[in-house]
Structure formats: C-alpha cells, structure tokens
C-alpha cells in the first residue's frame, strides 16, 4: 500500500485517476482504518486529503455553508453559526461514535462509507445538502442523496473526490431535527434514524417539509408521502398520525438481531413524529 498526501486537489484527483489497483480517499479514517485491518482488505493507494488547503474549513458563503471534506464532526459542534442554522445536521453528526471518533470522523466520510445506518446522512438529505465533486473531468455539484446507492456503494467514479458538503442558508421560519433509536445510550449504530426539515408560513403552518429515513432501506429514503402529510398543517394530532403511518409504510427494513422488520417500521413512525415536533419548534412553531 502506498500513502500519499498531496497538497492540491488536482494532484489528489490525478493520483486516484491514475491508480492501477484499489485506491481510497483518507480523511478521518474512522471507517477506512477499521477496514484496513480486515484480512480481505487490499489497497494499493491511500490518498490523504488533509494537507489540501480548505479541506479542514467551514466556509460561510453568500449561499450558505461549505463544509470541507476533512472537517471533523467535533468541529461542526464548535461552529455556532452552523449549529444555529442546521441544528439537526450537527446533532446527527455528533451522534457518530465516541469522543475519540468525533475528533476524526467527517460527514463526507459518513456519506461516502455508504452505510445504510449512517447518522448524518438522513439529516443531510432532509436539509437538501449538495456535495461538490471534483473529478478528472472537472467539478460538478450533486445532491447528497445521490451519493450512496446501496450498502458500501456510491455513485462516485474513479478519481472523484467530494471536497465539500454544501448547505444552503436556511429559510426564515425553518428548523431541522434528527433522532435515532439505539439499544444503548451512546456508542451504537442506528437501528432507525429519522430527520425532518420544515419551513413554516407566516401563520405557523408547514409550507415545505422534507422527511428522510435511515437504516430502514439499503440507502436513505426521502419520503414525499411522509412530507405531504405535514404540508398545510400545524402538526395537529391527525397530521402527526398520518406522518407516523406514512413513515412506517415507507420503511423497508431488514430483520436482524438489532431489530425486527415490524419493530423498525413502528420506530420509524414514532421517531418521525418526535423529530417533526422538534423541527417545528425550532422553526418557531407553537
């Protein structure tokens, strides 16, 4: 295995594009190094992107935030502007692993690891996050939702690097939230995770809604049916009941020792109801 630490994104892309065998991008390494220790792991090249200027920065732009691919999840929580704008995204990212893992893990890594149970991914999808992809054929911006395509699989092509996650400046009267269920109180992987992002009208009723479900399908689900149950409502009991039913119906989870299909479907509905309430309050709804 070869280790490279290029100083420019162009060099990093070229190294990955020209690599003959299996190659990996290294940011926080909290997934990659675990994989490296398994017997069937084989890598010819690891490209550490942390020496590339800007990768470790959260930039505030006219449009919103550009979160560099090497920004640790601990650093997200220390950025008060980001916490205030996207509390749901930050709380989701901060649920990953332990204090030690938080020091190193990144949202871009969480997205590209493509685990169905990734905590930050439903929150990013609910927030309509986009990612900037730099590849051999130039730069493109695509929806974060389109990166994971199945367990451990992404839509990225050879030589592609995500250099930043882009979050828009939130609309007035909007709020987001993420909740997950785990059997313990910390240090575990989501059995179900739900993110809700709401924008309210001047009268306090929901104008736009995005509801994303994690760990209940091969990759994150953005449920339009669930979102529709909230539009025009003030989260009255009937609306929350409909949301719960829609989220349970949209979930197509696996059965395993951590949760049965029936349990996961039920929990998806319950968490959606609770996350919607939190998002609604954060948006200023009462």
């Amino acid at each position, binding site marked *: 295995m070869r*280790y490279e630490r290029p100083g420019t994104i162009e060099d990093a892309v070229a190294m990955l594009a020209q690599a003959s065998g299996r190659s990996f991008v*290294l940011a926080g390494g909290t997934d990659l190094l675990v994989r490296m220790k398994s017997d069937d792991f084989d890598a010819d090249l690891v490209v550490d992107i942390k020496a590339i200027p800007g990768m470790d920065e959260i930039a505030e732009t006219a449009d919103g935030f550009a979160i560099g691919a090497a920004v640790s999840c601990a650093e997200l929580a220390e950025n008060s502007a980001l916490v205030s704008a996207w509390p749901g995204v930050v709380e989701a990212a901060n649920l990953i692993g332990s204090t030690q*893992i938080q020091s190193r893990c990144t949202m871009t890594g969480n997205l590209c690891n493509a685990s169905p149970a990734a905590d930050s991914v439903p929150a990013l999808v609910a927030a309509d996050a986009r990612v900037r992809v730099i590849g051999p054929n130039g730069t493109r911006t695509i929806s974060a939702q389109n990166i994971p395509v199945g367990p451990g699989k992404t839509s990225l092509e050879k030589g592609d690097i995500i250099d930043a996650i882009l979050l828009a400046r939130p609309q007035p009267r909007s709020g987001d939230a993420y909740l997950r269920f785990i059997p313990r109180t910390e240090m575990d992987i989501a059995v179900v995770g739900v993110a809700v992002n709401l924008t309210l009208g001047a009268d306090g009723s929901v104008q736009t809604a995005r509801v994303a479900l994690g760990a209940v399908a091969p990759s994150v689900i953005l449920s339009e049916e669930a979102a529709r149950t909230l539009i025009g409502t003030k989260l009255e009991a009937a609306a929350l009941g409909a949301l719960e039913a829609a989220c349970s119906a949209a979930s197509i989870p696996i059965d395993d020792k951590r949760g049965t299909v029936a349990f996961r479907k039920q929990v998806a509905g319950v968490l959606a109801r609770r996350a919607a309430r939190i998002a609604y309050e954060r948006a200023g709804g009462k």
Partner: protein
Amino acid sequence: MTSIAVSTTINGDDVEFLCRADETLLDVLRNRLGLMGAKEGCGTGDCGACSTIMDGRVVCSCLVLGAETEGREIETIEGMANGSDLHPLQSKFIEHAALQCGVCTPGFLMAAKALLAAHPDPTEKEIRFWLAGNLCRCTGYDKIVRAVQDAAAEMRGEGT
C-alpha cells in the same frame, strides 16, 4: 514496501521515525518508539485503550496512520506526569482505586485530560458521555467518574 519518514512532536519533544504506509500511530508508539503506555484493546476504535491526544483532541491511536502524524503534536500517557509528580487525574485514580488490571487506565486518563481541558467543571452526565468510548471490564465506571470529578475540583483550585 518503502518506509515513510515522519517528523512529529511527542510530549513536547521533536521525534522522527520511519514507518510503513499501513502502520498505525499505535504501532509506531509501541513498536518503534518504545512508548508502551497506549494499549491495543480492540484495534478498531471501540475500546479507547489506545487513546492519545493529537493537536489537542483525543483520538484512538489505532485509527490514525503513523504517516498522518507528520507535523502534528501528539501527547501520550508517558508525558502526563511531570517527572515524579503525578498529574491530579493520576493521583485521584489511585486514591479512588479507579483501576484494577490497568489496561484501560492510560486511555481513560488521556480522554479525561482532554475532557477537563475542554470542560473544567463537567457534570457527571458529561463525564459519562465523554468517556463512553473508553471501556473498562474490571471496576465498572463509578470510581472512574468519581476520580475525574475529584481531579476536576482540585484542578479548579477547590481542594477536597
């Protein structure tokens, strides 16, 4: 496999070492530099026995490549005491009997040191969540939490 030359700072000293691309910081500390305080428990970032501080943040040294530490500042358990003067956390761990076999202890101490640097007056809940990535299979956690609380009080000048 060719070796990589790395220059870093460990416990305030400039250190240079050679390592392979796939060697972790934990491997380098234990096998190349003779710093055996950090322990390998799981090797996959779950147990915290290898906790060290890198640029002020506590990390699992089993999940950091040696090559990644170029230009970084590393703190290990070996740098915690000042000569024969123990750090307050070390003294309080002894006083509270917050260890039995001792394998998890260096990791707990490094994680607790980072905690008290960031939060000098943590609540019990904050301590328990911060240390959730450090596993102890001997004492349980109560004595450890009490030791950290007591050390925090001492470090704030509120002698007990």
